[in-house]
């Protein structure tokens, strides 16, 4: 048996529905159709009345989840694409994210964002929006990079008493496979050393973890040992694990697929600079997508986002510093 990243997401939802009657799933086409990406396939049939279609109304989808959470439910909201969370943005950052702080009433909602680029998806179906949500207080932002994390972190997201933005990467949906679903997991909020190394640390998250691992493989053949840290959640960021890695390697490259101004890479580099200044043997570096919308054409897209190739170049450059 093998299970894909997408199947793990489906299975986590099936288990959350089975384990907790307060859980329901709401989003466009998530009902009998099973969702645009089939992340809820069969769930409407398996859990009658608990997985149902929303109108094309992201604001109302999120607002209603907050209302249901106030009444003790634990809704999962599927955005059809992360990019379509913008009409729901206000309810996320101003309603959901502030509820607990304002009233002490928890807001246990999970918002699933099919995120990130895939070939040919273009400017409005490819965005990585984690930084927008991480900037606002009151939200937890998860960016699972593995099948195991997709499963266990989604279960955790549903169990957490605060709103969780669950950024699942569309590029990993079908291609990333594991042998089976995990029975144990690192808790949310903790980063993971995806590969140990001594010469340089790459901090990455979501799909970029795999690009980083590919580079680590490549450089290992040349005798360079790259440590890859997978952030797993980007709010909170596990600064300790990053600093510990930098302490070992003295060099750090932070890689993200999002736009280059601000975002996760800026936050991580800033923390490293502040907290691990004395541990650095060379300036910390970042690699992001280009500062333009995400292009449709596969050839443009392949250069717009960081890939093993551009990461490798950045690593080699940093190793020379």
């Amino acid at each position, binding site marked *: 048996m093998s299970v894909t990243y997408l199947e793990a997401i489906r299975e986590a939802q099936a288990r959350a529905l089975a384990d907790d009657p307060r859980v329901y799933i709401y989003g466009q086409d998530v009902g009998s159709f099973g969702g645009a990406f089939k992340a809820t396939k069969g769930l409407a049939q398996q859990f009658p009345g608990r997985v149902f279609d929303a109108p094309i109304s992201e*604001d109302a989808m999120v607002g209603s989840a*907050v209302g*249901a959470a*106030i009444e*003790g439910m634990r809704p999962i909201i599927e955005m059809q694409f992360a990019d379509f969370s913008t009409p729901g943005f206000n309810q996320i950052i101003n*309603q959901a994210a502030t*509820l607990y702080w*304002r009233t002490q009433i928890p807001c246990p909602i999970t918002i699933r964002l099919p995120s990130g680029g895939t070939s040919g998806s273009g400017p409005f179906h490819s965005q990585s929006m984690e930084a927008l949500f991480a900037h606002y207080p009151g939200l937890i932002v998860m960016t699972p990079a593995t099948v195991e994390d997709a499963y266990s972190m989604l279960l955790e997201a549903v169990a957490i008493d605060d709103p969780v933005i669950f950024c699942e990467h569309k590029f990993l949906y079908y291609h990333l496979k594991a042998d089976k679903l995990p029975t144990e997991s690192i808790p949310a909020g903790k980063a993971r050393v995806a590969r140990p190394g001594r010469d340089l640390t790459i901090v990455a998250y979501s799909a970029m973890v795999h690009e980083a691992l590919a580079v680590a493989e490549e450089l290992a053949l040349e005798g360079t040992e790259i440590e890859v840290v997978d952030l797993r959640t980007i709010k909170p960021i596990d600064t300790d694990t990053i600093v510990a890695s930098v302490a070992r390697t003295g060099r750090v490259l932070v890689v993200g697929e999002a736009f280059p101004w601000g975002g996760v890479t800026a936050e991580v580099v800033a923390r490293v600079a502040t907290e691990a200044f004395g541990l650095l043997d060379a300036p910390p570096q970042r690699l992001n997508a280009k500062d333009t919308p995400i292009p449709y054409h596969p050839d443009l897209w392949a250069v717009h986002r960081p890939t093993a190739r551009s990461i490798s170049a950045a690593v080699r450059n940093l190793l020379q510093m």
Partner: protein
Amino acid sequence: MVTSPIFDLRPSDPTAERDIFVTTFRWMLLARTVDEKLAGLYRAGKIPGGGVYLGKGQEAVSASLGVSLQQGDVYAPLIRDGAGRLAFGETVIEALRTCLGSVLGPMRGRDGNVHRGRPKDGYLPMISHLGAMISVVNGALMAKRRRGEQHFVGATCLGEGGTSTGAFHEGMNQAGVERLPFVMLVTDNQYAYSTPTSRQFACKSLESRAAAYGFQAHSIDGTNLADCLRGLGSAVTQARNGGGPQLVIARLLRLCGHGEHDDASYVDDRLKNSPLGRDCMVVAEQRVIAEGWADKQEIQSWRAQASSEVEAAVVQVQTEASPDPYTERWSALKSTHLLDGFLNA
């Protein structure tokens, strides 16, 4: 619902017109008294935040919704709903604590003035973004239905200006699709801040929006308490009895500035002198007297009772501590183990 300690205004016979009318009128009186006190405190510079937003002229419609709701219902009032809040079960002291920044208030100084509520009791605290509470009420109703509760209603309020938001549309449409026991009260007070309705919408009447969402429409004269009670009572009853979502449009004129900083000099004199410009307090009082439900003296005693409750509350709140930033828990998460250590160091 926790009612005000001295004001436990439940009609003794809810079918008796007098009882309901007088009860609601007394909530209106209390709300007007609170508002006047807040205006005074504002002018005296005693409002920590600096601003107050009043419901003058809107007490009848607001209170009529409040009294039509009951325990187990969901209520998300808006900016001009001091009267409805009291009638639904907010206490004067809660209101004042929020406006005066007492740490004992329901928002503990974190949010202020009209942004207050008690979600556990079905009383939802508004955020500022207009229209955003509709879908929140929807979600609460969906949850109640899912849990098998019955005979509950959810209601929220908005000005006519707020109907231009996308959030209004999405929320209304969602309530229609889910056929929720939901009452949307839109109080058309002729202005959104300074903006007249001619710059806000082009429909012949806001009632026409009911059909667009599968709602039933009701029109009420917001200056006339009897009409407010009738219209909102009927809308709430229909929603409660499975009649699906209801849109109530109340018409009146805002009799104050947008906030107390605003002299509202842009308000058209013709509106002021039209029937819309009547003060619902005056109209209601005339009815009470005309019907012989109470005489001037009795009304005066109600007013005095309201005043002394409000004065006592202000005195008490003014002795209460403001929030202490140094003992404040600076955390937006319930999951303390997920706080970001770097940001919270």
